[in-house]
């Protein structure tokens, strides 16, 4: 009777140990699955952010093209609004696109600074009831900016497709 009892105890310990090992393995598997899910979620989030940045940069180019047209017609008050939108979009892109190179960030910063200077120039001209800086010069600078932003956009799109 005592032998049967001891045997049952030993078997009990063995079963408990095996169960414990299986539980530990399952916990490990669950953790790995959770980690994989987190990585996948982060990747998806990163991709969504990237697509947002591509769309925002594309929108910034549309705004600057509109600014080029409005410069020719001299709609200065509307232009001030457009410049503000243009700068806000570029600031947003520069902050959220963490994988942008320093060269690309410098090009975007160039756009923000040009737009800020042009806005200031328009504000002063409106205040003094005078003409802002030369329109061909403004459009030459902004056209160069469009070309450079298009290059960045093309590179970002290639990365998104890849």
């Amino acid at each position, binding site marked *: 009777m005592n032998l049967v009892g001891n045997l049952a105890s030993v078997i009990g310990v063995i079963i408990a140990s095996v169960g414990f090992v299986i539980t530990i393995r399952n916990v490990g598997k669950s953790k790995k699955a959770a980690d994989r899910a987190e990585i996948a979620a982060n990747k998806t989030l990163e991709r969504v952010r990237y697509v947002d940045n591509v769309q925002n940069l594309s929108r910034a180019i549309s705004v600057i093209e509109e600014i080029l047209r409005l410069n020719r017609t001299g709609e200065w008050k509307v232009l001030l609004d457009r410049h503000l939108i243009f*700068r806000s979009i570029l*600031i947003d892109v*520069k902050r959220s696109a963490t994988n942008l190179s*320093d060269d690309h*960030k*410098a*090009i975007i*910063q*160039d756009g*923000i*600074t*040009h*737009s*800020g*200077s*042009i*806005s200031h*120039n328009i504000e002063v001209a409106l205040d003094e009831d005078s003409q802002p*800086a*030369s329109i061909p*010069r*403004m459009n030459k*600078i902004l056209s*160069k900016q469009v070309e450079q932003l298009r290059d960045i956009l093309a590179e970002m799109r290639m990365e998104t497709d890849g």
Partner: protein
Amino acid sequence: MAAYKKLAHLAYLLHQKTVKGEIDWKETVLNGEYQASFSNYSIQISLVNSQGSPEACVKMSVIGEGGDEIESFTDEDIELQWLSEFESNLSPYVMMHDTYGAARRLAVGAEKAINQILSELVDDVNPW
């Protein structure tokens, strides 16, 4: 005063890099003003009337992330910091005017044009 010390250092480094052609200066909407951008800030350089001299002095402005001027100084402002801080033979006046001239040549493409013409002239003189 400590702020001018840093600005003097900034002017010194910008001069070093500009004369080597390592900074991408560009024209701005204002005649005679040039700008170079970095990842989060820009620098604008221009000539302004001097307070104590009939000759123009060079003004450098630091432009913030949002496109507004956040700091500016002239060669006159950093004059006092100069001799004690840098082993430079140039005075702030000469150095900042030199930076301005080099920035202008880089921005309008004159530096590139002169380099190319020079290289072609050298090739013509020494065809082998």
